[in-house]
């Protein structure tokens, strides 16, 4: 036991507090300071107004046994070895303590404060525990220290009080308390685990009580902030031991403040901020998933497949060119869309896909991808609809036969024009939309001609929700997804252009046929395309051609003759041939140059520009549609691309006027018997009656005359 002067030891302790690991050995009573904090007893010591070290020194030594026992207090001040344990102990070599610590460490660690103490950093608790284990009054450092500590813990109050009195560095004190906490927590454990050594029996309940009181005091919650000193101190010590700042003692108050603030923000701001930021995190999560998808599956094979497949377009390259034209979504956004497209191609069997554009909406926007499925991979949903239609027609006929009594209505609804098959005409491509990259892609249903016809007559903003109803006149047959699809079809038909010669007609047998099919439907890339000079592209519109079929006013690209299909009603066929002959609609054939496009009231339908006037040699040709504001096309001579960004409406110089309702139908044929006439006025009635009477009179007169004549004859 070393009877170093307590002050010295304390100093040492203090110095070594930071080090904590310092060997405790040999410092039996040496580390009263250490021991105190480590042991829970110090808590109690705090309470006790005992003298400082002296009491410590006086007591602790025996306590090695004590130490083991509930740090809280048992083993009381048996240790009479006055050696100031704590101060010494820290300075002594930590090694012996180390192993012991581990032993001891275990139980206390379960406690809160012990857990607070980082294992790396806090030798305090360990030595204490160990010392307590050892319980040797011999100058075993560890044991002694332990003992000391424990003893001191037994008298936490005196220690602590003493500490306070002595106005040690705060750090020291904190450390002490740290230890105290440690031990405090372990106290309970120890109490259970280790029966009080012999000495502890004598443990004055006073000590226990004081310790308990001290701890209770420390745990008392502040009325202002809801914290308690116990937690705060243990947190602080943890933080210090974790971070090991220089001159911790000097910045101690700041550390204390920081710890408080950290707690504070966690408790109070969590509620407010989390709600607001949640959607941001959600979308970030989804977009993170986009970035991670590449790593999902096997590496080599996938790479080869991907490079060979080529279904994904080079969106970034197109975006670069469009940016030269001043059109685009910003690089980050475009990249995310790129990744989303990649995800689309990975999950669906897609032959080719393209970033079609973005349609703005009121609440949300649509990112649109134009997709061509691989052969035979289409999803056929529409067969059901066709079947239903046929059934309906059959039923209506049956009804007509039955209900002869009611006047038959002569009105025959015009037969619905069937939609075009997939992969032809307006349904050549399938479109997927999503609201934001990262959200799931939704497939748009194929468009039917009726929808296109009505879409031409209405003008509505998109809300951003695909299932929103379209309330309009004439009533649109479908909801927003159908309207969106119809507008996409119209925009594609009107504004998708390519440089002349890029596409050529396929080498099929038939040339221009005059049947219902009409015109060439298919085209393919021209492998011999040599590019056109950018200047030429800008100067003359005839260098650009439409490569999407024009949509007839019927709503289809390929003329459908509804007359021929009416084979059921033969009688009316003949009639119809005469009266209802529908002219075949013909639209401009595929690959028509856009110079043939109609003007809109003296406004040219297209505007061409060079992307840059300052550096013309590297400029690209940009085509901007005036008919569909927001549709752009660019070409650098060899490459080209189309893009749309806007609200999805056509430009009209006149204001929109909704169509008037159709005239009221004639309910019945007008004939003489049911011709409506005005009621005769009074004069007319009288005149009529007079005339009638006159006639009657005349007739009577004639009769009477005839009678007279006859009578005369008789005579």
């Amino acid at each position: 036991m070393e009877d170093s002067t307590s002050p010295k030891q304390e100093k040492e302790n203090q110095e070594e507090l930071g080090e904590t690991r310092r060997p405790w050995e040999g410092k039996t009573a040496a580390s009263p300071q250490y021991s105190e904090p480590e042991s829970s007893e110090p808590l109690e010591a705090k309470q006790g107004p005992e003298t400082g070290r002296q009491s410590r020194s006086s007591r602790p030594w025996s306590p090695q046994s004590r130490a083991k026992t509930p740090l809280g207090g048992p083993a009381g001040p048996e240790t009479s070895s006055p050696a100031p344990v704590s101060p010494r102990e820290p300075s002594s070599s930590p090694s012996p303590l180390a192993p012991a610590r581990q032993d001891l460490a275990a139980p206390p660690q379960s406690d809160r404060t012990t857990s607070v103490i980082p294992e790396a950093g806090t030798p305090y608790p360990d030595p204490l525990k160990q010392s307590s284990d050892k319980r040797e009054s011999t100058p075993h450092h560890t044991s002694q220290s332990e003992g000391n500590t424990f003893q001191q813990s037994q008298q936490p109050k005196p220690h602590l009080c003493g500490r306070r009195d002595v106005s040690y560095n705060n750090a020291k004190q904190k450390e002490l308390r740290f230890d105290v906490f440690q031990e405090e927590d372990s106290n309970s454990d120890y109490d259970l685990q280790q029966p009080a050594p012999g000495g502890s029996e004598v443990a004055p309940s006073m000590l226990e009580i004081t310790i308990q009181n001290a701890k209770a005091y420390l745990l008392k919650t502040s009325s202002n902030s809801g914290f308690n000193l116990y937690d705060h101190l243990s947190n602080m010590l943890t933080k210090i031991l974790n971070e090991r700042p220089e001159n911790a003692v000097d910045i101690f108050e700041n550390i204390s403040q920081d710890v408080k603030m950290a707690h504070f923000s966690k408790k109070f701001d969590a509620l407010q901020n989390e709600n607001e930021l949640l959607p941001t995190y959600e979308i970030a999560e989804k977009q993170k998933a986009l970035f991670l998808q590449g790593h999902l599956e096997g590496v080599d094979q996938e790479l080869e497949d991907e490079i060979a497949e080529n279904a994904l377009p080079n969106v970034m390259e197109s975006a670069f060119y469009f940016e030269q034209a001043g059109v685009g979504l910003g690089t980050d956004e475009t990249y995310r869309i790129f990744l989303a497209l990649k995800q689309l191609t990975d999950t669906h069997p897609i032959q080719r896909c393209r970033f079609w554009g973005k349609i703005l909406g009121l609440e949300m926007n649509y990112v649109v991808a134009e997709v061509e499925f691989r052969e035979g991979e289409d999803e056929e949903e529409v067969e059901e609809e066709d079947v239903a239609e046929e059934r309906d027609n059959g039923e209506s006929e049956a009804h007509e036969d039955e209900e002869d009594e009611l006047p038959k209505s002569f009105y025959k609804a015009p037969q619905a024009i069937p939609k075009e098959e997939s992969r032809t005409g307006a349904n050549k491509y399938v479109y997927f939309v999503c609201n934001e990259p990262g959200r799931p892609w939704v497939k748009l249903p194929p468009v039917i001609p009726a929808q296109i016809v009505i879409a031409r007559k209405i003008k509505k903003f998109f809300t951003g929700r695909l299932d929103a109803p379209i309330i309009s006149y004439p009533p649109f047959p479908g909801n927003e997804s159908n309207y969106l699809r119809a507008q996409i079809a119209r925009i594609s038909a009107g504004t998708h252009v390519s440089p002349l010669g890029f596409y050529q007609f396929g080498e099929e047998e038939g040339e221009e046929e005059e049947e219902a099919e009409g015109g060439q439907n298919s085209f393919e890339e021209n492998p011999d395309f040599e590019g056109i000079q950018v200047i030429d592209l800008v100067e003359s519109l005839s260098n650009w051609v439409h490569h999407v079929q024009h949509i007839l006013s019927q709503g289809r690209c390929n003329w459908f003759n509804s007359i021929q299909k009416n084979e059921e009603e033969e009688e009316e066929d003949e009639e119809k041939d005469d009266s209802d002959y529908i002219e075949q609609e013909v639209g401009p054939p595929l690959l028509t140059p856009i110079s043939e496009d109609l003007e809109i009231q003296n406004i040219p339908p297209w505007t061409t520009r060079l992307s840059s006037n300052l550096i013309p040699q590297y400029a690209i040709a940009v085509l901007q549609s005036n008919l569909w504001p927001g549709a752009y096309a660019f070409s650098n001579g060899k490459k080209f691309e189309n893009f749309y960004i806007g609200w999805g409406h056509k430009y009209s110089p006149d204001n929109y006027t909704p169509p008037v309702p159709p005239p009221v139908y004639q309910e019945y044929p007008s004939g003489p018997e049911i011709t409506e006439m005005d009621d005769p006025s009074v004069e007319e009635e009288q005149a009529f009656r007079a005339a009638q009477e006159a006639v009657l009179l005349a007739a009577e007169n004639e009769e009477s005359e005839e009678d007279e004549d006859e009578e005369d004859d008789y005579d």
Partner: protein
Amino acid sequence: MDADSLLLSLELASGSGQGLSPDRRASLLTSLMLVKRDYRYDRVLFWGRILGLVADYYIAQGLSEDQLAPRKTLYRGAPLLSPQVQIKEETRLVSVIEQIDKAVAIIPRGALFKTPFGPTHVNRTFEGLSLSEAKKLSSYFHFREPVELKNKTLLEKADLDPSLDFMDSLEHDIPKGSWSIQMERGNALVVLRSLLWPGLTFYHAPHTKNYGYIYVGTGEKNMDLPFML
């Protein structure tokens, strides 16, 4: 949008699709700086781009210290030669800009404040709107002299803060629903688009000082709005 933060602003407003090509951006930056120096403006805003048939006009506005004072508008672009049109293109341009400004130029609440002496100043302590505020139309004001303010009842006026609420808010715009509010990038950016003057985009990043508006369009009012909603 402020000339100082032009690049960032353009990036934030890019959701509407129309932006500036790199060479235009570069030239604009330079020229706006020059304008600021030559005319001694306090702030120079890049107002936007009016698309023409042949070429586009790039418009900038200069603001003096008093934010609400009438602004000077500068344009650059190729004038359209159109002999048929009686009105000079320039006049038409100016009137369009003024119309748009009066109708749909907006700023968030709190960005400007009014001093008792009259002039309005940029509020240096404006930290941005909070998220809940950013989603409400009432947190945005028209960037012009108030028109409807006087018509408010005394009861409503009592709730207003005279130093901040001295302009008309968007809440009472007619027709209702002529603004589309969207949050982009999760909640990190709020974008308002005018449906009455399509092409006007206003953006603001909540909790930051970034905000601004830009007009890119043909300069035509959307008269069909009531049918389209």
